[in-house]
């Protein structure tokens, strides 16, 4: 069972569970930028939440099926066509050998996910199949997909039947995002930051991070710090006056002031922010943030019992 890539898209990668326990060697987590959308796609085809799936920035990607299969698309809304016929996202779709699967362009949200019953196969490296492009490991030869690549699929003994994501569990995408955050160790450097929130995601955005411009307080002198560990969701302020929100592939240590931290509960949202989107930050305490996470996971577990965010 396999698929052939017929239109490669923009840096489409295979992603699965993140890599843990190796950040002290400089190895980041990787894994889906929006793990909730990937888990929803896997749910529709009977897979575990982190089964290896395709992460497709902005859509514009096509595949040809080489055998019968069950697939599902979630994430940023795009038109889906199978042999030219419009199909819905958030449903189990049956494809037959020879079918052409085409994704249109996402107008809101940033990443589409395709899951297949059984999961895609990829190279496992340091305990995970997730692609990490900067060091070219995991996934499909450690790289983004090209036309003609053949994506193999693991055999599945589960028939998911026909499923639809419950309506109230589908994320709604617009061009504004509210992100909950807690203070970082250097928050005192940006006292008063929340008085004027005119923050916008710039064009510098990929799986390592998103640049956020706006009225950040100016750092005094060059407020560089001794290199310190930093994790996805961390917000660093640079001497140029822009902030970076770190994503799954971000560096493991850094010397820029760590001013805020997007809460764990909202990490999945980061994967859907696109250039030009407005961002508002909502202040939480760490204990409130943990409650938010438990609440969110409990909500989705009624549909995906083994979900982790």
């Amino acid at each position, binding site marked *: 069972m396999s698929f052939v890539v017929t239109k490669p898209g923009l840096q489409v990668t295979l992603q699965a569970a993140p890599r843990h*326990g190796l*950040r*002290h060697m400089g190895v980041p987590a990787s894994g889906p930028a929006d793990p909730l959308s990937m888990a929803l796609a896997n749910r529709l085809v009977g897979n575990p939440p982190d089964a290896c799936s395709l992460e497709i920035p902005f859509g514009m990607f096509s595949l040809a099926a080489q055998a019968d299969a069950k697939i599902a698309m979630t994430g940023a809304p795009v038109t889906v066509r199978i042999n030219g016929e419009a199909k819905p996202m958030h449903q189990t779709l049956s494809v037959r050998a020879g079918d052409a699967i085409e994704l249109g362009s996402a107008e809101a949200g940033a990443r589409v996910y395709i899951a297949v019953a059984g999961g895609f196969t990829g190279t496992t490296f340091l305990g995970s199949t997730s692609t990490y492009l900067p060091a070219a490991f995991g996934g499909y030869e450690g790289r983004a997909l090209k036309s003609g690549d053949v994506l193999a699929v693991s055999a599945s003994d589960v028939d998911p039947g026909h499923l639809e994501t419950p309506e109230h569990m589908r994320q709604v995408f617009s061009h504004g995002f509210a992100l909950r955050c807690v203070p970082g*160790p250097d928050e005192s450097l940006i006292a008063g930051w929340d008085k004027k929130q005119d923050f916008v995601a710039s064009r510098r955005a990929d799986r390592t991070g998103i640049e956020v411009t706006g009225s950040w307080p100016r750092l005094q002198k060059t407020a560089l710090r001794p290199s310190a*560990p930093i994790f996805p969701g961390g917000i660093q302020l640079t001497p140029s006056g822009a902030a970076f929100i770190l994503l799954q592939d971000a560096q*493991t240590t850094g010397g820029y002031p760590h001013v805020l931290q997007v*809460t*764990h509960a909202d990490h999945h949202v980061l994967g859907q922010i696109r250039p030009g989107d407005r961002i508002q930050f909502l202040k939480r305490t760490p204990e409130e943030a943990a409650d938010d996470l438990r609440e969110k996971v409990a909500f989705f577990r009624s549909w995906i019992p083994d979900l982790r965010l």
Partner: protein
Amino acid sequence: MIDCNISLLGDDAVCLRPADRAHRHALAQALRTSGRWLDVVPGKEIVAVRFDPFMCAPSEAVAQLKDWLKSYEEQSSGTGEPIELTLDTSSANAPDLEALAQQNNLSTDAFLQKVIQSDLVVDMLGFTPGFAYVDGVDKSLVAERLSVPRVRVPAGSVGLLSGQIGLYALGGPGGWPIIGRVHERLFDAKRHEPFLLQAGQPISLKLVGG
């Protein structure tokens, strides 16, 4: 028990700051061995411990670590096997060498001699896979970050800041002035042991090119 400050780092990590930074690696190793934490990552001054806030509330993670520290006894983490790296300082591989030597009022030869005669030791890995922060550079040498980082420095590039060297294991963006390039592959996903270096390992540099 060691003298160590504990505080939250965001909502999913805890920062341990030992009074003496020399304790970081033994502390990190012991925490990693405990198997309780998602990631244990040393920085230049702290050790960060990442937890899953779904499984464990932030206040509880801090309390667990405080408790654990009470019975913590430091085991010597030992020093790694010394390793020699070949440093190529031909001009194509060392774009900032001449300027740095001049800033320090030294000939490039004298500058390089001061670098290679330093007691170099890998302080930690981090940033990207296999990138090594190396301590011990002769304190009389002064170097600052480039005002505009390079979009791409090749794998193996050797950056120098006052007091430390950074070994770029991957090609990629880089903000440190570059004084040469080592021949050895610092990270190789296809090698049985992908990482050439480890924290605590003494390093000597053998000059070629130039």
